[in-house]
């Protein structure tokens, strides 16, 4: 599936929720259940300091696709990370570079990606793109 297909799928899923509580409960459950990163990658150098919550990101290339894993110490942040990883991981560097994050607005989580939110998510998306650019350069 392309990034856009996955994003549309996520939008469909979220449209089933009636209110913020259901949306948040879903994200919290995502945050609780998913093992998002191998502990060996939760290192200082993989950390994105977001002032309030910490985010760790690890990237590796397999079959010309980037596999992202990530984590956060705050569970709602982790839930959003799960959604972002689902959209961006296992895609080609080019697709990741070209992708946008408008779907986050559509599922009602826009506040969480505000640069002033200080939860590390904005920096995380930048980091995903940086990895994609770096791997793209390797491929060329």
């Amino acid at each position, binding site marked *: 599936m392309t990034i856009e297909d996955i994003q549309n799928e996520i939008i469909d899923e979220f449209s089933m929720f009636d209110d*913020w509580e259901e949306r948040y409960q879903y994200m919290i459950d995502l945050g609780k259940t998913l093992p998002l990163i191998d502990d060996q990658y939760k290192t200082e150098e993989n950390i994105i300091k977001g002032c309030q919550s*910490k985010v760790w990101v690890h990237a590796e290339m397999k079959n010309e696709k980037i596999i992202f894993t990530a984590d956060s110490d705050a*569970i709602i942040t982790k839930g959003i990370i799960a959604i972002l990883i689902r959209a961006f991981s296992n895609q080609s560097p080019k697709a990741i570079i070209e992708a946008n994050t408008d779907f986050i607005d559509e599922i009602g989580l826009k506040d969480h990606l505000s640069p002033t939110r200080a939860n590390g998510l904005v920096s995380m998306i930048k980091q995903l793109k940086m990895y994609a650019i770096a791997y793209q350069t390797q491929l060329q």
Partner: protein
Amino acid sequence: MLNIEDIRKDFPILSRQVNGKPLVYLDNAATSQTPKQVIDCIVDYYSNYNANIHRGVHTLSQEATDKYEAARQTIQKHFNAEKAHEIIFTSGTTHGINLVANGFSSLLKKGDEIIVSALEHHSNIVPWQMLCEHTGAILKVIPMNEYGELVIPEYDKLLSSNTKLVFVNHISNALGTINPIEDIIEKAHQVGAAVLVDGAQACPHVKPDVQDLDVDFYVASAHKMCGPTGVGILYGKEAWLNKLPPYQGGGEMIAEVTFEKTTYADLPHKFEAGTPNICGGIAFGTAIDYMNEIGFDNIANYENELLVYATKKLLEIEGLKIYGTSKHKTSVISFNLQGIHPYDVGTILDKLGIAVRTGHHCAQPIMDYFKIPGTVRASFAFYNTISEVDTLIEGVKKAKMMLT
């Protein structure tokens, strides 16, 4: 007895909704809300007599100057400073601290010592670290105990004839602890050190008497006392202010300029270079009048009721821990739910219309002490109600349910 319902009518913002819920504003330690008396004062300034001060011959300038200087006198009276020119307008507490730190950079020498407390806000640590780097002075820290109180016997040991400055907050922003500043000041003076007290968190709750305290410098911000942002004061004893060099060069702060030499203006203008926040200064005076009309004793008593009630109710929630449990504290409660990140709790509370602060509250050393990433901080003002405390309690319970 305060009539809280009447008081709340003074604050237009308190009737707004957030995320479809009535706003419950419990982030007063970050900034207080503004009563219509202060808002009206700001509108009046820009509608009727906006002008630059101290140099115009025209009517508007004279009116603005008179009001600005009248505000200085209101503030002088409030803090019981001996002289009006001991009140320097600043852009806020941080500016005041930097002004003093900068002034001392020419007075300190290698080996001199500065004492700060472990309860300080970042703004009260960084300027001294910079000052120490610059002068070769040494920074020493008064430790705190598990209740979030300063360990005074340790302070006693740090004091010596090398101590030149002591910096401590009157009340901790992260934990609400009221520090024994009378004792701290007296002991510092015994070794000949000067004392700067950060009153940012204290001034919304108490009325400091700078002469009675015998404090050398005291700083405060208007926006924590129902005034506007971007304005505050530095109180300094006249003798100290005369000793410190000017902080910034510019208009207002000079008496005479030739290319050979500039002579500085008298106090307070020596420290007030450039066009100040005129409207802000005037509105600060109005805010102080407003708070005095309500009465600081009434404020303290009522806020203490809110604190006691909220503390009791919060502690009934299983797995909730309060940080900062001194018997001497103001209406600030820093807490965490076991195993839950404060950011998550704050996010759920926001969805319920409840404004709290989460994070390290610019006091990372305190968070390191408790080995936590941060806390949820609810801070109450005299316009908060018992029913809002109940809303908070229900919100925390809901957050716990969703996040566990």
